[in-house]
């Protein structure tokens, strides 16, 4: 169906190729015994073994994980608030302000947000004494800030399609507002909330620029460590690390979409 001619297909295939070829090559060569990405010296898992002994990488991984979990959780909670405000509260007084301030971070260059947040933290430190120095908590705050705007977009989309009749039925049966939202609405939009959390988590975990500005000694995240190594060129340890991360994400994404498809088709069958 549709005008599928050769030009469209070849451009499409080329596009997918550009998207995937470099990654696939890197994955293949992560199993290369040699150091180069051009000469195959036999298969080996030694770079992967090396990962487990690299304390710097392991601790950076742990830091990134901790930060991402906190940032994603805060972002999701606030994101729900923003989404609810926009979809349910009609034309409230500060709607325009909230709308502007919640959508600007989506397009703002990271380098500007990173720099500006650092300046704020420094200024706050000299005025109030908090935050004292930069570290895990400043990174969490920074990540949560832009995370909540992305989370809001995801949850808003789901809330718009929400069938209000369910809430009206609950009200008719005697429930009142915050309770209705917590016990009825939230469970129903749970998949969107989970998706929002995962999005905020990913954005936090992968963030380099903002973390570079607002991190401190002892709070190096994984992207910061990777970047410092990578500026010097390709290293086989990073190949292995990158492969691990990409494979984990790939499995998660494919698993999630398979699970969603099963859920949808199961629902259709039940109807």
């Amino acid at each position, binding site marked *: 169906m549709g005008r599928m001619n050769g030009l*469209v*297909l070849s*451009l499409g295939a080329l596009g997918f190729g550009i*998207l995937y070829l470099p990654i696939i090559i890197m994955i293949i060569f992560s199993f290369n015994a040699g150091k180069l*990405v051009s000469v195959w010296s036999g298969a080996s898992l030694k770079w992967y073994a090396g990962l487990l002994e690299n304390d710097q990488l392991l601790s950076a991984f742990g830091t990134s994980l901790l930060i991402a979990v906190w940032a994603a959780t805060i972002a999701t909670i606030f994101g729900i*608030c923003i989404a609810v405000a926009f979809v349910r509260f009609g034309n409230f007084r500060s709607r325009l302000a909230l709308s502007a*301030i919640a959508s600007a971070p989506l*397009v703002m260059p990271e380098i500007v947000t990173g720099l500006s947040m650092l300046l704020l933290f420094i200024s706050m430190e000299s005025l109030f004494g908090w935050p004292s120095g930069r570290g895990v908590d400043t990174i969490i705050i920074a990540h949560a800030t832009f995370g*909540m705007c992305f989370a809001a977009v995801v949850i808003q989309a789901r809330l718009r399609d929400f069938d209000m009749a369910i809430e009206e039925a609950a009200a008719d049966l005697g429930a009142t507002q915050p*309770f209705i939202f917590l016990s009825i609405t939230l469970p129903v939009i749970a998949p969107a909330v989970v998706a929002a959390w995962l999005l905020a988590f990913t954005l936090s975990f992968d963030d380099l620029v903002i973390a570079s500005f607002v991190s401190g000694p002892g709070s190096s995240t994984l992207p910061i460590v990777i970047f410092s190594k990578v500026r010097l060129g390709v290293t086989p340890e990073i190949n292995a690390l990158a492969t691990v991360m990409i494979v984990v994400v790939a499995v998660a994404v494919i698993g999630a979409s398979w699970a969603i498809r099963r859920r949808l088709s199961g629902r259709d069958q039940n109807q």
Partner: protein
Amino acid sequence: MVRGMGKYLVNLPAVTGRRLVIALPLIWLAVFFFLPLVETLQVSFTSPRRGIPPYEPLWGIGDDGFFTNFTTGNYALLLQYWSDYFGPAFNSIKLAFFSMLVCLLFAYPMAWWIARSNEKWRTILLVLVMLPFWTSSLLRIYALIGFLNPNGFINAAGLWLGLIDAPIQMMQTDFSIYMGMVLTYLPLMILPLYAVMVRLDADLLDAAADLGGSGIQIFRTIILPLTLPGIIAGSLLVFIPAVGEFVIPALLGGPDQLMMGKVLWTEFFRNRDWPVASAIAMLLLAILTVPIIYARYQDGRDAVAETPNPKQAEAG
């Protein structure tokens, strides 16, 4: 736990609850997003110094009373060393703009392919598009280094196959920047295009063919106008962040591919000149003000267009 919370909150008057829900994110974002920008503006008007923080306070109460260190010196510097600052600015705009076009060139057929596929293929292709989106862009750009290096994969394959005599310099060129941009931003261009294309009624294409339209005519008169909102949305989604991109020029670009992001980073981390860095940040924002406002305006229009028309509902 939800039950317990509910019982606790159920006694809150509805208005207070509402106000809380609005105030929480509003205050947070005002403090942690808006205030920093104000702070940056302030710092852009001070001078650097040794110590912590490495810039003079803008104002304060000292022994002699109120004082201020207001200076426009940073902006004067930007203008004076025009080629060092405005050069990268124009370069950023140029590279971001053409990256946007290249992304569009690939994304449009890809989105069309996905939108016109059957259910099964569509899911698979969408996953293939989303996968890079969920993986770290740093890692994707890193993979490109090994790909494009003089001793990297393409050159090695080319030499081995006898296609080239000597390694081609692909790193630290405009080409490597464009490839990095496409790798990073292609999914962002595909998604809004796909969203618009999948809603395109196949009957419209049949009708146009029935009324005498050739393939190209149908594209020009029907497909292009109806996918225009997607094109605009995707283009803005790519262009605006690309102007301020740092990692791509840092890892893939050379001295000729200076972009604003890299200049800002250098001023901040290398030269420790925070006031100038702030001035550059303000310059970057100034450049992007128009596109950002246009993007928000488009968002608003799309929201209106999506509201169901009562007449449409009655006929459907």
